[in-house]
Structures are given as C-alpha cells and as structure tokens.
C-alpha cells in the first residue's frame, strides 16, 4: 500500500511521519517559512507555511501537520498568499530595516529580507511600535545581539537547546514583549553559552551576528564561499570559507556537512583571524645567538633533529615524549607515534585530546 497526498493537483507519495512541508520540499514545491530549521523540531510559530487542506476549515501549518493518506493540499491559493502577505507585512512593520542586514552577519541572515521582497512587504502598512531591545552592552567579541531585528521565531533558543544542548538562552516575557535572554538578562559570557555560534547562523534576520566577520563589512566586493574542512580537530566539520577578493572575511558552517550538519564549535566558528594576523609565522625560526631568526625548512629540521639526538644521548630514550595535536588528522597522529616509537624506542606518546 502506498501513501499519497494530492499536492496542488499532483499526486505525491510520502512515508509515514513526513509532514506536509517535508513532502512539499522534497518535490520542490516552495513554501515560505521563517521559524523553520530542518534540524529542529517543527515549531509552528511564523504561520507562513500554512496551506489549505480539504475538509479542514482553517489553513494548517504545513510544518507541524503530518501528511495522511488521501489528503488534498493546496499550497498557494489566493487566500493563502493573502495571509502570507499580511503576515510578512506585520513582521516587516516591526522590523523595517531587514534590507540593510549585511550577509556577513550569518548564514540565514537574509531570509526575512528575501521574503519581504517576494511578498512586497515594504513597511508601508501596519506601522507601529517595535519590539526587541538590542544588547549592545554585551561585551563579548563574537556574537552580536542586535535584537531590534529579532522577530521572535526562537530558532536561536531552540538550536541552543536541541542541537547544542547548552540551554544558555531562553524567552523572557510574553507577547509583543518577548525578548531573547540569558538567565537574569545577563551577558553571554556569564551564561552557559559556549559561543558555538549556531544561534548566529540560524537567525533569519541577522539579529544575531558574527562580530568577527562584520569587521570586514566595509571591505568592497562580493562575498565568495569556498567549501573546506575545519582544520581544528579530527571531526572534520565542513565549513564555507567566506572571502572578499583574497581576504578571508568569515567562516560559516555547512548545513550539508556530513560530520557537522551545520554545527561548529567556538574555534571553528570564530577563531580564524590568525590566518591574516600580522604576527603570524611565515617561515621557520631558529635561535642564533639567543635571537629567533628566519631559516629554511632544511635548517630547521636539522636543528630539531640535533636537539632530539642530544637529549636522547644525554638522558636516554625515555627522555623524549611527544604530544600530538588534537588538530592532527589520523594520518599525522599515526606518524607522530611512529616517529616516537620507531625513532626513539619509547612509548611516551600522547594526544592533547585526552586532556
């Protein structure tokens, strides 16, 4: 027996447990959303994904409604599009500056702006008070908390709880006065936050922003993305390296990264400024007359070998101890232990990840 629904006149198969939204997305039927992140439990807040289902009086949120056999769904009727436009106009009425959001703020930061254009929500209707109070007083150098742009979709709160398991932030107050907060409305650094940046990357408005990337907002030129692997540890998180010309301007997690599915840690997300740091080492240095001076790799290796041999000679083979870096991939870690065991005949080898 097959399960099918009729979606906009076409028969579509589905598997048990799929929501209408998931079915629609699988067959490339575009349904707008703002509170949706497919890594998170469907929340049903923005109501943009509403669709008409035959036999049900009011439109239903497709993200929280399971497909059932024989269901007849219309995803884009005139009525539905009118509701979506009104919803977008309402959202824009309290977040009129969406178009000014720099894409460097985060991966999803343009979602609101794009939908506003699509639904021609230009802020001309439903003018009124604006919600959200930015925390420009938060001194942390990584996560910008610009809640003037917050639309209360709570993707940040949910990603922090469901994906990262930190529960560092939550929703304070009710209704129009809801505000994303840490305990007792404090700074992130005094909370459970690990600065993984997942809240930044899922924020659909740029209310949360990557402050490190934003330092390069004024660099001219378009942002290019290059797929790479985070070099920090052996997990192998996929990242997109953001560049403008030959300048590295940011790192974003790859949502389709097989190892990380959009997650990064504080190092992978925010610790990339060393790449372009003025004091970064560009050649090996050796000490001559007590001073570090640039040298060739050849010379550096020879000096290192000399040092190891000297230690071994003076103190015996167990005087050598190697700690491999957590950033080393398997192959390099293997080489380190080989180097220590075969080269010196000792088992004194470890890895910093054990600490």
């Amino acid at each position, binding site marked *: 027996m097959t399960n099918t629904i009729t979606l906009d006149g076409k028969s579509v198969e589905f598997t048990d447990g799929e929501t209408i939204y998931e079915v629609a997305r699988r067959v490339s039927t575009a349904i707008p959303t*703002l509170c949706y992140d497919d890594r998170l439990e*469907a*929340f*049903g*807040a*923005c*109501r*943009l994904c*509403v669709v008409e289902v035959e036999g049900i009086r*009011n*439109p239903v*949120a497709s993200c*929280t409604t*399971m497909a059932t056999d024989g269901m007849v769904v219309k995803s884009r009727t005139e*009525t539905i599009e*009118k*509701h979506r436009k*009104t*919803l977008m106009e*309402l*959202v824009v*009425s*309290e977040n009129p500056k969406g178009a000014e959001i720099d894409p460097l703020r985060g991966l999803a930061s343009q979602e609101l702006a794009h939908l506003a254009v699509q639904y021609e929500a230009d802020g001309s*209707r*439903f*003018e*009124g*008070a604006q*919600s959200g109070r930015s925390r420009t007083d938060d001194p942390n150098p990584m996560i910008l908390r610009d809640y003037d742009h917050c*639309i*209360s979709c*709570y993707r940040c709160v949910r990603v922090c*709880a469901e994906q990262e398991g930190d*529960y*560092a*932030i*939550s*929703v*304070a*107050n*009710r*209704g*129009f*006065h*809801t505000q994303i*907060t*840490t*305990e*007792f*409305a404090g700074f992130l650094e005094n*909370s*459970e936050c690990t600065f993984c940046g997942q809240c930044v990357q899922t924020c659909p408005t740029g209310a949360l922003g990557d402050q490190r990337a934003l330092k390069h907002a004024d660099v001219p030129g378009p942002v290019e993305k290059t797929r790479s692997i985070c070099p920090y540890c052996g997990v192998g998180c996929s990242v997109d390296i953001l560049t403008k010309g030959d300048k590295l301007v940011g790192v974003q997690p790859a949502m389709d990264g097989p190892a990380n599915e959009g997650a990064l840690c504080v190092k992978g997300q925010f610790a990339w400024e060393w790449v372009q740091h003025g004091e970064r080492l560009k050649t090996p240095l050796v000490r001559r007359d007590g001073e570090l001076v640039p040298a060739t790799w050849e010379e550096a290796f020879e000096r290192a070998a000399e040092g190891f041999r000297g230690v071994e000679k003076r103190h015996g083979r167990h005087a050598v101890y190697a700690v491999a870096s957590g950033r080393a991939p398997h192959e390099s870690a293997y080489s380190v232990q080989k180097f220590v065991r075969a080269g010196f005949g000792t088992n004194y080898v470890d890895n910093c990840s054990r600490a």
Partner: protein
Amino acid sequence: MTTDQDLVERWKPEPAPLLPLLHAFHERDGYLSEEALRAVSKGLRIPLADLYGTVTFYHHFAREPEGWKKPRVCDGPICKLRGSDQLLAELEGATPMPCAGRCDDPIPVLRENLYLVGRPGEELRDTPAPLPAPNPGGLEECCFAHVRSEGRATLAGYRETGGYRALVRAVQEQTPAMVLDAIDASGLAGRGGAGFPTGRKWRAVAEAPGDPKTIVCNADEGEPGCFKDRVLMDYDPHAVLEGMALAGFATGAKRGFVYLRYEYPHTQLILERAIAEATKAGILGDHILGTAFSFHIYVRRGAGAYICGEETSLLNSLEGKHPFPRNRPPYPVTHGFEDKPTAVNNVETLASVAPILDRGADWYRGLGEGDHAGTKIISLSGDVERPGNYEVPIGTSLRTLLFDWAGGPKSGREIQAVTMAGLSGGFIRDLDVTLDEPCLRGKGSFLGAGGIMVFDDSRDMVDLARQAMSFFAHESCGKCFPCRIGTQRLTERLSGEGPADAEAWKTEVHDIGATMGAVSACGLGIAAPLITESLLRDYPEAVDALLEARTR
C-alpha cells in the same frame, strides 16, 4: 526559617512540582530572588535560563523584594466601570491585574494570599464571593441545584443531598463503559468554551494506550467576565472532586490535578480541605471504598497567565515548561500530561458529571431548551440590575436572561452591547439571540465559557474594544506571529493610531483580523479579532467617530 533545601525536598518528589515550589519561595521571601531560582534550577534540574524565561512569563511572580506584598487591583472591563483606576491610585504600590473573576462584586484586590474586595474611598474587606441568586425562572438546575445550601462545601453537607452517591455506585456496581455511555447519552459538552463532547473525550482517553493517565480540571478561569468556576469551587468543591474521580474511573486515570488560577488563593484552601476530608473518609485516595480503584487529586496553582487556560499551555505549565501552546495533533487525549493520555475538563463540566450519573442522562438532556441538551452557567456582569451567575437551559433567549432574570439595564439606560464568551466572542448588538452555540456562531460569535458583560448606551464602544484588545495583547504568549504582532497592532489602531485615511485604517484592521482569525496557532489569536470584527460590523458610527476625532 525554612531553608531552600527544605522547600526543594518538600516538593521534589511530588508530581508537577515546579509551580508549587516556586510559590513556596515566592511566599517565603516575598519575591522570587536569583538565589531562589538557582536553588530551584538545581533542585529540579531545570536549566537556569529556561527557568528564568518561564518565571518571567507569569505576571504574578514578583521578582523584586516585597513584590508579593503589593496589592494587585483588577482593572478588567467591569472593574474599570466601577472605579478601578481610582482604587489603584489610592492603594500604595498597587499595580493593575487583568480580570480576577469577581465582576458580580467588584473590585477584587489581591494582596499576598488574600482575595479582598475594594471600592474607591472604602476600606478593603475580606468577604466571600456572592452566591448565585435562586433561579429566577424557577427552573430545575444541574450544577447550582444545591450550591446555596448551608454547609455544602463540607463532606457532610455534600452527602446530605446524595453527594458521592454516583461515585460510590460507579466503583461498587458499574463498569467504566457504563459511565462513558451515560455521559455520551447526556450530551454533556465542554463548558470551558470549546464545547467538545465530554463522553467522546473520555472515551478517547480510555482507549488510548499509555499509563499513567491523568485527569486535569481546568480551573484557570482567566476569561474576563467569567466567575462561574470560582463559585462552584468555593461553594460546592466536592461536586468538582466527585466529577474528577468519576472521570478517572471512566478513563482509567489514577490521578488528577486541579489547575487553579493564581487569583483564587482562598479557593485553593477550600479545595485542599475538601480533598483531605474526602480522603479521610476513603472516598478519594488509595482503594476508594475498599475497591480496586484509586484516585489522587493534587491542586496546582497558576501564576498569572490567561493562556494557561488553553489546555496545551496548561499542560506545559503543569509540567514546568514554558507555557506556550503545543502544536496539535497529537491531542491531550493521547499525548497530554507528560505525554500520556489526559482528559482536560472545565470545572463546570466536571461539576455536572455526578448529577448526570445520579439522575440519568435523559434528565440532563431534558434540562435544555428544545433540542439543546443541558444547562450552562452564565456569568453576567456590567450594566444590569442584578449581575451574577445564572444557570440557564441551553437555548434560552438572551433577552429572557437580561431582562426577566437580571432586571434589564439601569433605569433610563438602554443596552448598547453585550460581550460573549467573556471577551473572546466579541460584541453582540442584536439581543434577539438564544444562548447556544449554533445560534451564536451563526452571528459570528460564540458562547464559550459563558461570560456575558453588559454595556449600556453611556459606554464608549471603541474604548471598550481597545481595553479588550489590550487584554489580548497583554496575554498573547508570543509564540505565533499573527497573534503576537496582530494584537499589538489592533490595540494601537483602537487607540487611534494607524493610517490617517479612514478606509486604509479599516482595511488594515480587517486584514489583520482576517489573518489572525484564520492562521493563529491557538484560540486566543483566532478569537481576539472578533472584537474588532464586531466593532466594525455593528458599531460603524463609533468607529467613524474615532476616526473623525483624529483628524480634528
């Protein structure tokens, strides 16, 4: 003094411990301090940020020292008419609170755990809520049949007229199926507003897999203009408890919670006394009357949030979670308290159960007018001679209630509007309606929990609408976009803001209402625009006056 640890140890082993533990700290310290929240977070293993967010959701938890001691004065629509602004100014440190359910004897003032009544220029007094007047139509009643008897709240008083007879018979002689059949046959439907057939709900819980099952009595009577559940619990608590126990017997649930609104602290004492009395007599608790059936009832007090009257918000609140409504399906009958099958029933619904089982389904059906089954308690307030709770046959004409029973408007005045379902049903101008869902829904309104507020021709309709929308904005949980932003925008427009052009203003109000009504995630957002819709439809002259006054 009781230590933090004592309080945590007292509540941690109990079911649904968060709210009572928070109340224990609130009352010990006079507010919820950072240290208290840290102790609760650690004790119940709730992330601190989550707990902080959840506590800020409820408007009655004070977070500044001495906050619990400060008077909260009802500024609901009726109390406003009776001078709540003046009373607020007179009482030192007083803050307004939404309707606290004493529209028949305003103005309620809450101070610590005292539920007082005040009038501008007078001393606050601690007097019990008024009893319903004897049925003015001389009709037979269901819930109110014995509520006026002296001592009815005691076990002896309750048993005098056959109280607990239905439960005794059920556990000793009947099967759950027999109880379900009788409730089905009676036509009893949810009296909290949604009107879902009670028998069907119970059957769904009985048949749903999962254990333990739970009965929740929804006593979070937060709808402005509704004060019927309070009078039932205050004067006839055993009727509610018996209804819960029968629900437990019929569905296989072994425990029940009364989720009581914060504003009724005295009611908590009455309920707890009644539970203790019934437990001592072997009518509640383990092995009721020596049978295999056990049923325990716990009272849990809310902390100020209208949305917690919505059953899935209520369940989240009981579980100690952020009280956003849940997405449905699944419904509570299969995934309720702690994701187990749960029947959530209103106080009045549960209070109807024992009389129905005692006197028969046909008797109950026959109480209604014409084809309508049963009765409904209406909380009537505002500009009528005799406000109060009235138990009417379903299908009674509104005019009969307003004019024959309640004495009509004050002399020299005419009724300009009545609200339905408290505020949720919007305004009704045409009084030629009957009090039943088919008729009222046909008029774009609904009976709901049965609160009717009456406003005579001296009242400003636009301002009443603004107060109503401001209430909904205050109580919007903030989860779904249309309600969170829509209630705010409608409040602003009813305050005179919005487009200068009158037609553009009306189009905005209508568009917001249409989208809220169609796509909001729960009943609050769906019902709130009935206020503006009925205002635009039935009071165009008042709207035009507002819009003209702006241009002057």
